[in-house]
């Protein structure tokens, strides 16, 4: 993907992540204020298409956004070649995607 494409992908995913992160944090604060346990929270999210969509989108946006930033940091701060940096960033993105997909699966399906 071109630099311009990566720039656009990072900005657009940030646009999505902004509200998603805020809702995520607000729900955490709201849900645990009376001592709801993890088990009780999972019982409520289980089978919810809404939460599945919410966190599915969250994971997608994060796994697009973060690797692009990591790629820039690696390119500027390490002597690694461009190809290596691209490969590491892509791997990191795939890692986030798998990790996130597992979590979403656990929250709504497992």
């Amino acid at each position: 993907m071109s630099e311009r494409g990566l720039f656009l992908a990072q900005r657009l995913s940030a646009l999505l992540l902004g509200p998603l992160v805020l809702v995520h944090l607000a729900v955490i604060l709201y849900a645990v204020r009376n001592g709801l346990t993890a088990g009780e929270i999972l019982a409520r999210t289980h089978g919810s298409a809404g939460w599945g969509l919410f966190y599915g989108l969250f994971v997608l946006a994060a796994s697009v956004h973060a690797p692009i930033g990591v790629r820039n940091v690696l390119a500027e701060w390490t002597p690694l070649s461009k190809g290596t940096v691209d490969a590491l960033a892509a791997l990191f993105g795939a890692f986030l995607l798998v990790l996130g997909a597992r979590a979403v699966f656990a929250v709504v399906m497992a």
Partner: protein
Amino acid sequence: MDAVSPKSLSVRIWRGKDDGRFETYEVPARDNQTVLDVVTEVQRRHEPALAYRFACRVGVCGSCAMTVNGVPRWTCRTHVAKVAEAGEITIEPLRNMPRIKDLACDMAGFFDKWQKAGGRFTGTRNRAEPPAAVDPASRKRVAVDAAIECINCAVCYSACDVVSWNEEYLGPAALNRAWTLVNDERHALRRTTLDLAMEQGGCGNCHTQGSCMRHCPVGISPTESIAGLKRMSLLSFLVRDHAAADALAKTEEPA
């Protein structure tokens, strides 16, 4: 003023290329004296072989920029009284460009990057047609009011830390130039210029440190121009103006 010795000024000037050294010269301190005056005095009276660059002496041409006490400046518009520290000034060539000799550096790479950023103007009309009437109050023209005042002196390029650690980075001046062209309704290749300014070495590398803006002798903010290019690139993706894109594609075909 009080920091300057009433009688003489001690001037440390870089001599040679990369493996050169500082030489110290004593010149008379005067009431009204620019750093360029001092360099000229050193060359005329002490060191005829001293290489430096200047043309207009009045802040119009942008030729005489040097590093004065560690800060990139137009030497013709810098009074000694403002920069001397305990009767001393240190003068070096600009940073981020290959040194040629003494205070002169090679600006070819700096100007090559203007081309890489899509900085060449391509007109839409031939000489038989009337010139375009650009409304001075139009949004696009107002957006570049400051940016078009750039005279290519390379002070911003020398001040930029990103340029010093990333040789691919096109730098603030080239991207500022691109910003003026993407807002110029007479420029045929606006989309091309925008895309080039966003490519490898382009706007994405800017860290918004603002050294360019801080040191620009005419008060331009290339940082703002770079932010404008990023915004325009994002908007051009979100709001597709198909008619305009088609028209642009047609004019850009031969390029």
